[in-house]
């Protein structure tokens, strides 16, 4: 009875979404204020309906209701409680429900925070979000209903995929979805602007925190995924350029471009059409990601098991939503967006340059991901494009971007002189070179030029950031704690850029200085890597809640001194008969030591993989810093300054559309 109620909630939500998408839209175009007024209540009702549906599905998992097909496929009575909850979004249908719930959640947030916008504009934004919701709700109701019954019900379920039975995998999808779905807000905003035919600096100021919030979630979501892959998959890898990983990376790259382009639109009124296009494209890539995961078009470890029928539906959704928006862009773009003036050498231009380079980087990843498909479709053979390609080509595209980042964050708005830049930047340049040399010496081992270049570029970012802070504080009475009075957007920017540099350092050092060993070890044997000794003490077996485990015991020593015990496991999950590796990791700020069990060999020995991974944590710590920087920047008071508030009041009073 109750799952049917959930189904009913979904249908109701679809009807409400239809009203939400159509009525305020017409109201905004025609000027009917009571139609416009329907935007907020419909959006909020939709949220509560979807929340109810989600709670009902969760309830089905908690009570082990195996008469619901989705629960039967993804849960089991032996599954621990935490994973029974995360199983709600563990497979296709449930994750879609999470998607629409989060979409309605973002829309709800828009209804709360929209005082800064004229009602007409706000209604347009909410309508567009409603339209997107219609697309996904229809997809669910027609092809992927989580509430379908399984008759007759089974006694016990198929269990959650063991790969997903891990804490990291509980939070990774929701956070990533918050990012993916959040890009729809900027998208809706861009569409609203196109429909209205104009976009002001004021409006750009409003959207900026939303774009940043989305970006923060994507940053964290991707970092979590990478960190999870590292400790869970057993061979110390943290990024595979898998099609679905790329599908999350591309909106992140474009989202970064969007934030930076918005900064210029907001401050100087320039690049409006580019900003709008970026907002459309970021959401397009988010939809593309949804398509790639669920259609079976590309082989991927992330792909949900699904069929081409669903693929056609999502492709149609993608085609309609993005195709429609790009038609609108082609039609309205030329007439609307003029604005801004600036010299050829100015901060605007550097930001535009980097925003374009990020777009090129995105295009590069897209090219590599879809090229095999393109060749096969044209009958030109079947190739693979993997890490050897992406590592080389992507890094090549990023290098100019990183160089310009340093110059750009230092340059002046509107007009700057090449002489001044060269003169002032000589200091951070020398500092960067020195820091790189020191680091290369400290790292020891073989000197690789590529590593030096990578570290050098990262040091350049750090040096120019610190130098920029110094310049900003220059000439005040108490220079050092003036830092706390700097504008939050600036502070956020500095922290985020430093975070970016940390991630680069982590990537470069791990890629070039990791040591990997694969050896046959019997209890009593030991192996040496990077100055650390792994002593294989022994094995034991134990039974977990839904698995059987063989656990190895390794002692880690350095220079004879005991550091810690590592316990890698090899588990067999009963229900799906699937093996899993749990690695034993000794984490550290400057290095990780990593051991995992391979297969048992003859003579009581095992094949064991051991890794020395220097600076690998910097990759994710850098991402965390980026997210913090974004968070701080979101709350810049200038977005809510008295002047801004007054301007809003005037606009409202005069009923003039900005």
């Amino acid at each position, binding site marked *: 009875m109750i799952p049917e109620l959930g189904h009913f909630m979904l249908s109701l939500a679809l009807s409400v979404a239809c009203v939400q998408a159509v009525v305020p839209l017409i109201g905004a175009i025609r000027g009917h204020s009571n139609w416009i007024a329907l935007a907020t209540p419909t959006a909020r009702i939709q949220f509560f309906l979807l929340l109810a549906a989600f709670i009902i599905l969760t309830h089905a998992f908690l009570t082990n209701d195996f008469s619901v097909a989705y629960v039967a496929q993804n849960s089991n009575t032996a599954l621990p409680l935490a994973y029974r909850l995360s199983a709600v979004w563990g497979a296709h249908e449930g994750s879609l429900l999470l998607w629409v719930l989060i979409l309605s959640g973002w829309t709800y947030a828009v209804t709360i925070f929209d005082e800064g916008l004229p009602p007409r504009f706000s209604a347009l934004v909410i309508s567009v979000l409603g339209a997107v919701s219609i697309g996904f709700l229809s997809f669910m109701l027609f092809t992927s209903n989580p509430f379908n019954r399984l008759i007759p019900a089974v006694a016990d379920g198929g269990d959650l995929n063991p790969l997903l039975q891990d804490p990291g995998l509980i939070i990774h999808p929701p956070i990533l979805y918050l990012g993916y779905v959040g890009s729809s807000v900027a998208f809706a905003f861009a569409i609203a602007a196109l429909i209205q035919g104009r976009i002001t600096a004021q409006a750009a100021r409003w959207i900026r925190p939303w774009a940043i919030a989305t970006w923060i979630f994507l940053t964290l979501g991707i970092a979590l995924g990478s960190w999870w892959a590292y400790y869970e998959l057993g061979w110390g890898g943290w990024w595979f350029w898998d099609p679905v990983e790329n599908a999350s990376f591309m909106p992140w790259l474009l989202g970064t471009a969007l934030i930076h382009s918005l900064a210029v639109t907001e401050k100087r009124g320039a690049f409006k*059409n580019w900003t709008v*296009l970026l907002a*459309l*494209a970021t959401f*397009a890539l988010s939809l593309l990601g949804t*398509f790639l995961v669920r*259609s*079976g*078009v*590309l*082989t991927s470890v992330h792909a949900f098991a699904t069929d*081409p029928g669903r*693929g*056609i539906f999502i*492709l149609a959704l*993608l*085609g309609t939503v*993005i*195709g429609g928006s*790009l*038609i609108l*862009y*082609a039609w309205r*773009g*030329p007439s609307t967006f003029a604005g801004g003036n600036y010299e050829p050498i100015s901060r605007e231009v550097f930001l535009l340059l980097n925003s374009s380079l990020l777009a090129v980087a995105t295009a590069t990843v897209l090219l590599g991901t*879809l090229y*095999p*498909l*393109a060749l*096969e*479709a044209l009958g030109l*053979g*079947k190739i693979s494009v993997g890490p050897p390609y992406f590592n080389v080509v992507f890094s090549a595209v990023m290098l100019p971007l990183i160089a310009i980042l340093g110059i750009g964050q230092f340059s002046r708005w509107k007009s700057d002189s090449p002489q001044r830049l060269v003169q002032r930047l000589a200091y951070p340049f020398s500092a960067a070179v020195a820091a790189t040399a020191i680091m290369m010496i400290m790292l020891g081992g073989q000197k690789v030029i590529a590593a030096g270049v990578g570290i050098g570029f990262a040091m350049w970012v750090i040096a120019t950031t610190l130098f920029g802070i110094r310049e900003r504080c220059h000439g005040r009475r108490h220079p050092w704690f003036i830092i706390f009075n700097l504008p939050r957007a600036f502070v956020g920017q500095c922290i985020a850029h430093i975070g970016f540099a940390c991630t680069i350092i982590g990537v470069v050092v791990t890629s070039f200085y990791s040591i990997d060993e694969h050896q046959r070890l019997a209890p009593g044997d030991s192996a040496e890597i990077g100055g650390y000794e792994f002593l294989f003490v022994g094995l034991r077996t134990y039974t977990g809640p839904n698995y059987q485990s063989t656990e190895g015991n390794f002692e880690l020593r350095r220079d004879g001194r005991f550091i810690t015990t590592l316990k890698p496991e090899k588990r067999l999950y009963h229900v799906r008969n699937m093996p899993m590796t749990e690695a034993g990791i000794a984490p550290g700020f400057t290095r990780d030591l990593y051991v995992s069990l391979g297969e048992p060999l003859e003579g009581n020995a095992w094949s064991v993989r051991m890794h020395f991974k220097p600076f690998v944590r910097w990759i994710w710590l850098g991402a965390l810093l980026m997210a913090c920087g974004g968070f701080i920047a979101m709350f810049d008071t200038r977005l809510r300054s008295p002047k801004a508030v007054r301007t809003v009041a005037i606009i409202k009073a005069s009923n003039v559309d900005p």
Partner: protein
Amino acid sequence: MRYVIPLGVFIVLVTLLAIGLRLDPSYVPSPLIDKPMPSFELPDLANEAELLTNSDIIGKPHLLNVWASWCAACRTEHPLLMTLAQSGETPILGLNYKDARDDALAWLERHGDPYARTVFDHAGKLGLDLGVYGVPETFLIDSEGVIRYKQIGPITSDILESIIEPMLEGLGGKK
């Protein structure tokens, strides 16, 4: 004018993805089509002492079927192979891939033996040379020993009728 470019790019992208929905991303086409069968020297499954080589099979268009006793899908296509063998027009050569001799013989005993001869490829060397990656696989080889077609996965009656039989007729393998 430049505002239409994003739309143009998008249309190309969607077309590409639509075509992609009809393709199978995990299917690996064989580079051995129209190339001669790799040379080999491996024992016969039935008689360990006897070695089979390329020269034993040239002369008539035939099928080479890669199978194993541990392969579940092989059982699906087996009845079809039996029927084909019984009609007597096209010889089927078996390639027993990475199997134990006793298991293989027992399997043939239980399900029937449609093969004119069976090559016992315990180490999988010939399989590797043929680019085998997913048993069962079937090759169509002409009278000169050149590979003409590779079927990945079990043969169904559809595939037999629409692809294999026409090819065999073209090669002069059927009356």
